[in-house]
């Protein structure tokens, strides 16, 4: 970890996301009008354009939708990290997040792999949300709303 590592820019729009990450929770916007979860954070609902939304915790569980392994660093901060994986994780609630799969080797990651969120502080302000493999979980419909 070097100081020059790219970090998320905290804005009025995404502040609750990063503040709850720091507290070890995965929190997303949910539309008050149509009830859909959304990510990335936005002022208007992607489905109904309502700008009434609340922030609420989600399960932190999902599956790997796709993943890649970087063998080349496109930024100096990642020079010592290659090869490293980047995955798109689809939460059981629907939204997809870009993240890294930790707790297994790159060649153990596969599309469809069940994962759950883990929290990795990188600065005082920023905690990254990564995912680790879990045993198969039941699709937790109660969480989906």
């Amino acid at each position, binding site marked *: 970890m070097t100081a020059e590592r790219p970090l998320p820019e905290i804005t009025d729009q995404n502040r609750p996301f990063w503040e709850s990450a720091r507290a070890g929770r995965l929190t997303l916007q949910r539309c008050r009008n149509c009830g859909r979860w959304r990510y990335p954070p936005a002022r208007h609902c992607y489905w109904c354009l309502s700008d009434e939304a609340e922030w609420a915790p989600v399960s932190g569980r999902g599956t790997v939708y796709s*993943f890649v392994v970087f063998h080349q660093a*496109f930024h100096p901060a990642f020079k010592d990290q290659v090869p490293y994986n980047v995955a798109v994780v689809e939460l059981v609630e629907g939204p997809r997040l870009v993240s890294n799969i930790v707790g297994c080797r790159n060649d153990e990651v596969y599309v469809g792999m069940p994962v759950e969120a883990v929290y990795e502080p990188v600065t005082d302000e920023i905690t990254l949300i990564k995912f680790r493999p879990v045993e198969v979980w039941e699709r937790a419909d109660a969480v989906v709303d």
Partner: protein
Amino acid sequence: MARTPRWPFRSRYCIVGVGNTAYGRLPGWSHVALNVEAIKRALDDAGLTKDDVDGVLTKAPTSDFQMLYSTKVAQALGISPRVTATIDQAGASNIGLIWYAMSVIDAGMAEVVVCSYGDNPLTGSRAAYRRIAGDEAAYGLMGAPAGYALITRRYMHEYGLKPEQLAAVAIACRKHASLNPNAQFREPITLEDYFNSRFVVEPLRLYDCCPITDGGAAVVVTSEERARDLKKPPVYVLGVGQSHPAKDLVLREDWTTSGAKESGRVAFEMAGITPQDVDLVELYDCFTIVPIITLEDYGFCKKGEGGGFVEGGRIELGGELPLNTSGGLLAETGMPGMQLIVEAVRQLRGECGPRQVPDAKVAVVSNQGGIMTTHATLVLGRER
């Protein structure tokens, strides 16, 4: 949803001149000068001069994306055109420019319109290519290869694509570039070379990725009537289509079908053709997965069968459907797409020497931008 199409532009507008600069490292060339040089050559090719031009349309340089770019090119050409604009649909813009050119000619607002692109990311500013931004960079996701690698992996999961099939695209492009003296990469590669090349972002290897390059290319568009008394035989715009997934990958429902499906449907319908009528294709190949998905979406084969389609020499010169006859983005030059239109025009005129597709009558060009974010299709014909 839309009304019954009237296709008012079908076969009424033509590309009458094409031009390009050298490709590769071009120190001392500004991107404006690359635009001007390409336009100058395209006008020479058409037998026209800059005083004939009343429209200047540009795609702004990726490396130095800036406001009012087309007026800078017009200024460097020393003209005040009636029509000038920069249109941005990223890599799909080149076809967007031709569409816009036809619409203003159709309305009598202009008669001769040049459409151009030039950039010098290798020797000039590479700011835009280097920019690392967005929350995803914190997880190490950056650069265009990763987006296409994510799509490739997902495609492999859904349809079982093999690396050999990606390789077949790279090998065909290199083979064709070996017959193109202006191509950047003229050494043919083998399957073994492909597998020996390093991973950039797995599952994509170096040979799956197009290079960054300096260069410029331009075309001249005019009406069929005006085209008649020019230097070269006109190439007709038979069909144009566009369709744009628009959303970033995390929000895009379907990763393995691109805008090519709807864009191709519109363009083929406007042109009144089916895939069987097509003699060659120039498909945007920033990464090897893209022509495979595009071939499927255009209906050359079924979804999931694109990997099989590109194998066995089918897309090589002499095969059933020659693809990227000048080497494409992968081997001729990594410029975002105008060069594919230039090559299609030269093929339809029969000017391509050792890489000529015999008796080429109909060519299809695809343009695409972002991470399969935008798509446009151009159907060109030797005859109306």
